[in-house]
């Protein structure tokens, strides 16, 4: 798994690549926590367009961060969901508490 983090207006934009499973879960959790601490961003935008796989261990990391963000009144948004990833997010119900946007720009303009 590769990741890239950027703060854009009031959101932390995280671009992930690869497969998100138990192997990378701890490192991803630590990276997201550190980035949220540093940036003090309100919203979390996850660009998953290069993520080919995610399972419940990976999803757990994302949902943990959602809790933190939503406590501060922020929102969770996704960009670039491939079919396999979309399906897992749907099954888990995550899509009911988050929004999906066609691009990062769109996500950022709607999350003000």
């Amino acid at each position: 798994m590769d990741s890239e983090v950027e703060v854009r207006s009031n959101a932390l934009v995280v671009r992930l690549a690869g497969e998100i499973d138990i192997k990378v879960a701890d490192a991803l959790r630590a990276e997201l926590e550190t980035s949220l601490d540093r940036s003090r961003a309100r919203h979390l935008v996850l660009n998953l367009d290069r993520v080919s796989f995610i399972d419940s261990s990976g999803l757990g990391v994302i949902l943990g961060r959602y809790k933190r963000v939503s406590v501060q009144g922020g929102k969770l948004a996704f960009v670039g969901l491939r079919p396999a990833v979309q399906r897992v997010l749907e099954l888990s119900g995550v899509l009911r508490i988050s929004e999906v946007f066609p691009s990062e720009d769109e996500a950022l303009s709607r999350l003000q």
Partner: protein
Amino acid sequence: MKYINQLRMEFMSIPDNVGLARLTVAAFASQLDYTVSEIDDIKGAISEAVSNAIIHGYEGRPENTVRIVASLTTRGLEVIVEDTGKGIENVKEAMLSGYSSVPERLGLGFSFMQSFMDEVAVLSEPMKGTRVIMFKQLGRRGDYASEN
């Protein structure tokens, strides 16, 4: 039922091997005529079952063995994931969506397996281990869109 092909694999209970198991069983299953989304389902189910064996069955101890037996028949893929770890006291409760014995986990592993596969059976005995038997029928489902 005639076996078209059969694969057994055994590997150490470390997180690196979850991806290995996923890839191998997916490549094996691709010898049948599954759709891309069906292969994604199989990857998802293997990932959950193998992760469970490592995290729950062996509680993260790396020197144990996870075993997979995968069989192809004209009807589809049967795959068994098993560990000789701590086992499950109450399988029915464990399989409930949202139930987890580990606070930071989601408790969605078994319900994902059930969504991804056509049949899931769990045999477990405390202190003995757990065996998850799954079946994915061939030519049953369309792609994601047609399921909704």
